[in-house]
């Protein structure tokens, strides 16, 4: 019975239009000053937004954000893209996020998701996990993990959005 209900629920999901891009879920996050901000407040004047999930203890995440930081100015000039880095550090490391971001000299918007609410809402299993949003703040591309050079492909996707 239980299984049947689940299956019927899943089947009914299939009838919902899949063609549409997925909207960014509305979830409360913490700013680096511990204020509350909702993801619906994310804005980049109709230009693309990249959302990158990371953590202070995640080496590939820090590598990804460091490598993008080297080319971020060029990316902004050419496409107007904004990068929003979401730290999934919990209470253990949350106090280290702001000093880390400053010491790394990252010019990203950075927010904290200490209990994984946005992580769950966006289906992020492990970090790094990167999303690209179009002018309507709909998710048009996502990618898990990071290997050196992955940023070239991400930039191609961003360029395709603004052309």
């Amino acid at each position, binding site marked *: 019975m239980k299984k049947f209900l689940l299956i019927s629920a899943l089947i009914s999901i299939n009838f919902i239009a899949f063609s549409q891009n997925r909207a960014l879920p509305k979830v409360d996050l913490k700013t680096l000053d511990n*204020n509350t901000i909702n993801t619906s407040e994310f804005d980049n004047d109709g230009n693309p937004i990249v959302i990158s999930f990371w953590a202070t203890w995640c080496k590939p995440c820090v590598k990804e954000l460091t490598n993008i930081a080297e080319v971020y100015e060029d990316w902004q000039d050419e496409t107007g893209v904004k990068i929003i880095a979401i730290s999934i550090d919990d209470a253990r490391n949350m106090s280290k996020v702001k000093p880390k971001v400053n010491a790394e000299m990252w010019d990203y918007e950075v927010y904290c998701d200490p209990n994984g609410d946005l992580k769950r809402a966006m289906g992020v299993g492990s970090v790094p996990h990167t999303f690209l949003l179009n002018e309507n703040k709909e998710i048009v591309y996502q990618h898990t993990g990071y290997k050196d050079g992955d940023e070239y492909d991400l930039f191609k996707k961003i360029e395709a959005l603004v052309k």
Partner: protein
Amino acid sequence: MRKLTFIIACSFIPFLTWAQDNSSGTVQGDFNLSTQSYYEDPAINAVGVDEFILMNAYSNIRYTKGNFTAGVRFESYLNVLQGFESNFNGNGIPYRFAQYNVNGLDITVGNFYEQFGNGLIFRSYEEKTLGIDNVMDGVRLKYSPLKGLSLKGFVATQRLFWEQGPGIIRGFDAELNLNDAISSLENSKTNAILGGSFVSRFEEDNNPVFNLPENVAAYAIRTTVNRGKISFNSEYAYKYNDPAGSVTYNNYAPGNALMTNISYSQRGLGIVLEAHRVDNMDYRSKRGATGKELTLNYIPAISKQHAYTLAAFYPFATQPSGELGFQGEINYTFKKKSKLGGKYGTQVAVNYSRINALNGGPSELTINRDHSPAFFSVANEELYFRDLNFDIKKKISKKVKLMLNYLDVIYNKDVIEGKIIGKNVHARIGIAEVNYKLKPKHTIRSEFQYLSVDKSDEYYKDQGDWVMGLVEYSFSPHWFFAFVDQYNGGYTSEGKSYDAVHYLNISCGYTKGTNRFELGYGKVREGIFCVGGVCRNVPSSNGFTLNITSSF
């Protein structure tokens, strides 16, 4: 459970036909599978399993339309991987919920995760890789009656494998942002937030000997103050008389915790100082529960979370029964074209943490119900953990990056691994990592790590020294190949001697978009695997691993 699944299933139907607005709902999901085969290998103490192959898998599916969200998670452990609790064996839907928001009132029915403040009295969370999922099941409301004030409340029970714990948990939290709430402070350079929370557990008293409190409460107050480059956070929590452990001493000692941190940061520099004191703060939704079961709160570990394999060899885990800890960290970037920065800049970090026992032991362990340990005592107390570590990152040229790491760690093996007072392990660990970019999308990464234990009689020699080497070749965006060897020179433990052994492991991975496949073969050493200060013991094993993750 069945009823709720039915309700959620039904709730999808109206959205299919009643198009109140023109937008259709969206569906999103993720999938995660880990399988491993286990072969017997006496050289590393690895045991085979009768099933040959074990598997952990789960999938989340969420439906969103406007202010409405519903979701389920299917979990399957056939049978559960070694290192996890065998109580997970089986299939089921332990997570299903519906949530909607009407004019600012946010209602969740079914399962939810929640955290009050830093989690000192309440945090419900999941960490699948550690086998932790203490999700709540009940009703939760969130509301903001005026600008700057947010309220949260819930009544729920807590997950225990495939069942629910016996306690009924009630919680309430309020947070006030003074700058948003008071108009005259709106443009103040100082930003202040106050918060308070209250949690109570009801559990029937059916103990024939003792008259146990059926309601056990805890409260916490917190504040954050920011001004310019300085941030200050502090939280104090108090737990009322909670029958502890096995309830044999008739000891209903209260508990308390205080954590505080202050940070200063500007472009290129970050400094953090932290301290915390914890006394008898193990708080669960069932009295006497142990291990990772039914934990209601979360005491963050006050030490650095290391990522390199041998740096994480001796990880600290918070002792919620009682500890006093300090931590400091400095991150600094030498600017480009400066003497120490070179062409690309150099990043350095220094971190120090030290944690010791409370004076005279925590309140809960003593038979004397009036004992309360001194607030501050460091010098003569038993050391639990100490870690001094240095980190240097340097880009040498367009193609080469170098990372160096050094740690000096003292680890109280007996206490951290759950025994009574004992000896420490003193380890020094050196790590070098080189990244070499062959072509724009082709990178070779290599790591060399060395761990040396202090051989004097004052310390445990534990498993002696370790050496590790890693070579990884990655080809963006799809492929990686890795080869790892961990070598142990042999040691003697509890009268049994172990020969020198190589833990060889090869793996390769393929990623396309959000689909990721990873196949590995080799030996895995026994050890503690930690995320966020919570740890799981992984036994030695030898075999194939296959991990697949996906999301849409």
